[in-house]
């Protein structure tokens, strides 16, 4: 049994951890998170693969380290309903609706209908004051988007950590909206190949 060689992309968890920490110091770092949003989609649309999930997802690596290496995970099976299509697509839709809501809030600040709020909303409910992480310098709408986007990133990390503790380390992957989205894109894009494979294996 050979030990697998480490590649540069096995260290992307450092990027994910740094991202979460930087958001405590300056909220504008939230914009870096857009990389984790567009890269997987681009890889799925252009390359037709889930190479991002498979090799480059820093968050997945972070959960692996916390759950496996540090032994924080209970390593129990995830409840059946979480891996059902209904839950996965339901969560994806919920996530997208909340994302659009965040964009709308940004628009309201942009149009001047609402003031920019220096809060990070956790689990779409709890508003945590986050004043220390912003000292001005950007347009109000630009800052509002940063607060909103960081809220989403932190919320999903919290959910991921909870399921990491309760179930398997990378349980987040089962209902990760990005994962569901890229898998759907791949399934549509490669439908011919999938059909051929299924017919061959019959």
């Amino acid at each position, binding site marked *: *049994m*050979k030990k*697998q060689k480490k590649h540069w992309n096995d260290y992307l968890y450092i990027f994910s951890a740094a991202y979460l920490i930087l958001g405590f110091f300056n909220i504008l770092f939230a914009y870096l998170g857009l990389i984790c949003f567009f890269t997987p989609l681009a890889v*799925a649309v252009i390359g*037709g*693969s*889930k*190479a991002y*999930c*498979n*090799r480059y997802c820093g968050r*997945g690596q972070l959960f*692996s380290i916390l759950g496996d290496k540090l032994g924080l995970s209970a*390593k129990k*099976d*995830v409840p059946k309903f979480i*891996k*059902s299509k209904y839950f*996965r697509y339901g969560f994806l839709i919920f996530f997208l609706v909340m994302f659009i809501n965040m964009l709308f809030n940004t628009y309201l600040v942009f149009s001047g209908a609402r003031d920019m709020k220096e809060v990070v909303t956790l689990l779409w409910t709890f508003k945590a004051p986050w004043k220390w992480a912003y000292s001005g310098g950007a347009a109000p709408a630009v800052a509002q988007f940063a607060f909103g986007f960081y809220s989403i990133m932190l919320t999903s990390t919290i959910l991921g950590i909870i399921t990491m503790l309760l*179930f*398997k*380390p*990378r*349980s*987040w*992957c*089962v209902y*990760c909206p990005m*994962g*569901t989205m*890229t*898998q759907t*894109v*791949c*399934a549509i894009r*490669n439908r011919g*190949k*999938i059909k051929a*494979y299924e017919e061959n294996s019959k």
Partner: protein
Amino acid sequence: MASKRKAFVDKKHCVSCGCCVKVCPISAISIYCGVFAVVESQKCVGCGMCAKACPASVIEIKEAQ
């Protein structure tokens, strides 16, 4: 000699995260077109590493027919 126990993937519930690919000591498993994991039956030794790692618990080690 390869044992008769092999890994089987429930393709319908696979989330194609690639955890199994990472842990397989003999690279017998891969993600097909980003949609589900596929085990190369001839290579698989049924060690169960993938089943343990799978976050959706959709891999089962069974006697191959």
